[in-house]
């Protein structure tokens, strides 16, 4: 049988079937379309300005490893004029992050990017191992998710960067659209397809891989010989999300465009005006100064529960009422340092390669 010719350049031998479009293409055309689509995403959303200091949320997994490589490539090819940094969060789960953080440290050397690793222990005084030993395996994703989001912002403020980019891919976003509809989370549904999220006092966050398929990210890493660690969290019991992910994979098998079709749907609608008007306004946490929907931000609420030995108070209304009934928080509990948005100068020294 004669070799298939690349459907794009009509010249080279096709060596892969593109997961997103089903086209049979050659390696060079795959690199070209993958990188150009990310560049189109960046351009269309006007994500960056020349001179921006941009932190890449780096976990050592496939998404952030490929993101660091592609951003460095595009920054040079299209002369974005960006100062790129790596920012990692160490949740304090024994055996989970160790190898991944080694990957990040290697990336720091390969790409000559400064690296900052910030730990939950350093910021909150609690590691995930200790949190799980107190609350058990139920609901611990809530703690980890809330703490990580705030830790990234605080790490970015320490680095004095203008912008954090994360490796969320198209599969993650499509899954989140479905999850938010099924859970009735209108507020998150309204913003989960936005490429950029930014509160008044928070650091700009964006997802340049918003339209990149997970399979293509793996394919890119494979052909570029990028190494990364695939580590599943040993504490993640989100069964509901597991159902949604399996469903999404089934949809993708039935019609590969389903992932991008869901994102298109999510971008095409918005929350009706009258519903939006009744949503809570954003404010700042009275204790730590971070953005919040209530007087106390979610991270402070969760931390107070941990410190007072009533961890469920951040999860259920009933436990929260029980905590409130016991009186105000004592002065001696550990709290999160007051949030300082980027001041213009880095507050910490970052590790750089020689």
């Amino acid at each position, binding site marked *: 049988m004669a070799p298939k010719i690349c459907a794009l350049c009509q010249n080279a031998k096709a060596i892969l079937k593109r997961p997103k479009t089903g086209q049979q293409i050659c390696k060079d055309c795959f690199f070209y379309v993958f990188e150009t689509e990310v560049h189109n995403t960046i351009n269309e959303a006007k994500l960056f300005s020349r001179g921006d200091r941009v932190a890449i949320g780096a976990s050592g997994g496939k998404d952030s490893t490929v993101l660091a490589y592609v951003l460095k490539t595009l920054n040079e090819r299209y002369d974005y004029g960006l100062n790129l940094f790596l920012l990692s969060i160490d949740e304090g789960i024994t055996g989970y992050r160790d190898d991944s953080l080694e990957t990040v440290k290697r990336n720091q050397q390969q790409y000559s990017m400064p690296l900052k690793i910030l730990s939950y222990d350093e910021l909150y005084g609690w590691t995930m191992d200790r949190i799980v030993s107190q609350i058990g395996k139920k609901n611990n994703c809530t703690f980890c998710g809330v703490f990580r989001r705030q830790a990234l912002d605080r790490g970015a403020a320490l680095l004095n960067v203008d912008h954090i980019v994360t490796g969320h891919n198209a599969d993650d976003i499509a899954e989140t659209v479905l999850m938010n*509809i099924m*859970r009735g989370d209108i507020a998150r549904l309204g913003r989960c397809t936005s490429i950029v999220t930014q509160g008044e006092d928070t650091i700009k966050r964006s997802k340049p891989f918003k339209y990149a398929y997970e399979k293509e990210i793996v394919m890119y890493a494979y052909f570029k010989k990028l190494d990364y660690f695939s580590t599943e969290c040993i504490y993640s019991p989100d069964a509901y999300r597991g159902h949604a992910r399996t469903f999404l994979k089934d*949809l993708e098998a*039935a019609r*590969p465009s389903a992932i991008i079709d869901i994102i298109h749907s999510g971008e095409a*609608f918005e929350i*009706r005006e009258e519903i939006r008007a009744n949503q809570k306004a954003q404010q700042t946490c009275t204790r730590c100064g971070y953005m919040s929907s209530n007087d106390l931000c979610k991270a402070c609420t969760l931390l107070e529960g941990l410190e007072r030995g009533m961890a469920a108070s951040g999860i259920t209304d009933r436990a929260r009422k029980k905590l409130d009934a016991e009186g105000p928080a004592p002065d001696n509990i550990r709290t999160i340092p007051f949030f300082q948005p980027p001041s213009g100068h880095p507050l910490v020294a970052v590790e750089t390669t020689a």
Partner: protein
Amino acid sequence: MSADACGNPAVETEATMDRRLKYDRSKACIKCKINAGRIVVRHAVYCKDCFPTLLSTKVKRSLEPHINPRTELSRRKSLKASGNLLIGFSGGLGSTVLLDLISKIYLSNRNELRPQDPTDGKARGGKDHPRNEPVWQKASMTDRGDEIKSLMQDKYQNLELIALRLEDAFDRKWWDQVGGRASTDVAIDVTNEDLYSRSISTSDMSDPIQKLRSYLSALPTHTAIDNAIRTLTRLLLLHTARRTQSSHLLLGTSLTSLSIRLISSISEGGGFAIREEAQEEWHPGNSSSSLPIRLIRPMQEITMKECSLWAWWNDLYVIGKEKRPGGKQGIAALTKDFIVGLERDYPSTVSTIARTCAKLAPKAEAVGSCILCERPLQPGVQEWKSRISIRATAPSSPSSAPVLRSLAPLLCYSCHTSLTSRSSKSISTKSENSPTPLPFWASAHLNALNTVNAKDEGGDVWITRRVGHNEMKGAIGEFLLE
């Protein structure tokens, strides 16, 4: 991922949420507080006497505000529609229950709402339960038209039956009957993403069944076939509603079916028209000057389980809908399996999905209607598609036959994706140059657009087509050095 880590609910019992009791109050009926409950509806139990009131209240709540003028919102047992009522009846569970409820609430003696004992002394449970009947009596699809006709004659003589068949969408006689604009047959080339269209002579393809088969066999996936059948059915009903001077078209979509439809519509890229999945206003011929026909789903607060129990208690004969061979592999069937499975462990999911989607609105103003499904057309679809997934490094060109225009900019995202998105198990048997006929309303829209173009250009008829690279080269060839 190892089997003993990461929240595998089968292994880590501690990792899963505690399952709520099926009913968490008491076993007595939540309404009369006297009788023992016979059905659990989202953690509340109802007895057999209170259940009919529950269903009729839900139907009235979903139907009457859309039909009666505001001042008529009293509890009067009548509908004050400005035209006739057309009820879509497929023979499936939802439409069977809808027909029964509408007939009992509005067309007959109110006492009939109470379930009668339908058993006539016959055993209906145990080994005689219908679930024990052989499922696969026939492997092929059966025409249920006669069964529907005899059911209507037996039970609903006061209603007029209009039989519609899918192939009517390709039948000039039907199109003339519903008062459609005169038009020539148009076919498209589905092997090209731009979907170039061209006129075909009637002699090429005159049999409506042949045209329907040709249309369906050109579609690349099972998802697309399901989507096409749904669109054809919907528009056949809407055009018939216009013909029968109906102001309202009622469909028996249950809450469960609505949630399934909402999720599968989103998964097929139909987010811009998500509101229309629950309720829509259709302007015949896309003309905003004509009175709209309202498509209403009065069962949208009633779950499939409630429908089943109503049918069982009232001994309703559910003819059943034919399952299309291969349909199991489509997004609609996958979504159904997923939602029905989820509903078992999380009974509120279907109502959450419907309530969440009811809070959504399109982000942009529509720029007309899709010529295939006649739902709102979102601007910038093709530009979005080409930006986020690059499919060509050079512009495509149509086949050598004379073409009318590219259909792509006239289609909504969902219809364009249906016609073009392929999977590794693509089922289309079409080759280039074999034309795929379009339903008559789509041909009529295309003809109308071309006429407008012709008028704009001063009365001459212009054919718009993309110029291929070879043709360009031919025109400038003598100036090229290599």
